[in-house]
């Protein structure tokens, strides 16, 4: 519970706000390009597909890594530096089960939910800009979106991506925290490493997953 609070609830604000902004930017940029081809009615499709397939899971995971992953690493690293983990071992409490595992699971549960919120907020942001600001037809916006986005193919693959990213980020975060040198520099270095390695792993995994999911179709 406390770990989902820590990893999930505290990340909601940054996820929701950045999702909204990214959706708005996508709509503004997409409208500019699409209207040159007279295809501005496809704006909803553009916003929804790029969010659900790519930006939701990827940007969501990057934000999650920098917001929650770094915090998890710092917390575990600090526990190690202040010898709380050694104290647990002295009391025959397994620190992996007591400290590491709940944070790992908290991260995995939170990540898909956050990615879905990110995509949903992005689409709402796109709607706000496209329909309310730029004056596209609301019915066209939704119906074109619905006819092009496939539940199993697009939405499910996005959810699978976010679960994979959640596992990767949580694993990196708890490992770096547990592996940190028990000093102030050690903890700060581990926190930085978490964010850097997570970002690289997320983007690398994304290439592999996308190649498998959307290849040749």
């Amino acid at each position: 519970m406390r770990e989902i609070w820590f990893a999930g609830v505290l990340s909601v604000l940054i996820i929701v706000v950045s999702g909204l902004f990214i959706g708005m930017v996508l709509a503004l940029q997409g409208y500019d390009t699409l209207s040159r081809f007279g295809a501005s009615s496809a704006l909803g499709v553009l916003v929804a597909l790029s969010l659900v397939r790519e930006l939701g899971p990827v940007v969501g995971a990057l934000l999650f890594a920098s917001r929650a992953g770094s915090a998890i690493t710092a917390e575990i690293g600090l526990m190690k530096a202040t010898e709380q983990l050694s104290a647990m071992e002295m009391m025959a409490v397994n620190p992996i089960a007591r400290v590491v595992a709940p944070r790992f699971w908290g991260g995995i549960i939170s990540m898909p939910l956050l990615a879905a919120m990110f995509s949903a907020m992005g689409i709402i942001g796109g709607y706000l800009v496209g329909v309310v600001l730029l004056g596209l037809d609301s019915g066209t916006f939704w119906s074109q979106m619905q006819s092009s986005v496939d539940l199993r193919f697009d939405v499910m693959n996005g959810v699978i991506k976010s679960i994979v990213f959640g596992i990767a980020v949580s694993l990196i975060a708890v490992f770096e925290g547990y592996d940190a040198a028990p000093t102030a520099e050690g903890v700060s270095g581990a926190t930085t490493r978490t964010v850097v390695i997570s970002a690289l792993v997320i983007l690398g995994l994304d290439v592999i997953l996308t190649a498998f999911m959307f290849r040749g179709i």
Partner: protein
Amino acid sequence: MKRGMLDFWVGLFIAAGVVAILFLALRVSSQSALPARSTYNVTANFDNIGGLKVRAPVKSAGVVVGRVTNIELDTSRYVAKVTMSLDNHYHFSRDSSAEILTSGLLGEQYIGITPGADDKMLTAGSTFKLTSSAIVLEQLISRFLFSKAEDSGDKTNAGNQ
């Protein structure tokens, strides 16, 4: 932070996440993805499928009735064999024709079914007897240019005589 408040916020968080997933599932995506059980497969042979892709829609009178599931080259006759799964709700008579159409000038290609008048219906595994291939724009243009050239050739010949 008290335990009760913590539980409340975590519950709210999970609920918001589920709502977001439902929003994506119900509002953003289509449920027209046909359930796998209630379909039957029919095939059609085309001389040329143009740019038809797997998962392209199959439409009759503009209504989506199925999807293309497989495209392969039949090496015995060198025609494209297109397999499509049609919704079990829709049945077409045996002499229906299938043609490859394009939505808009540069849009995606889909299969259009024009119903026939036969009493017997197409069943699983049967084949469309009447098909017409995709229109390839290059062939159309070259045919047009050739006929133009022929016309002007006739005129100059007539002028010489």
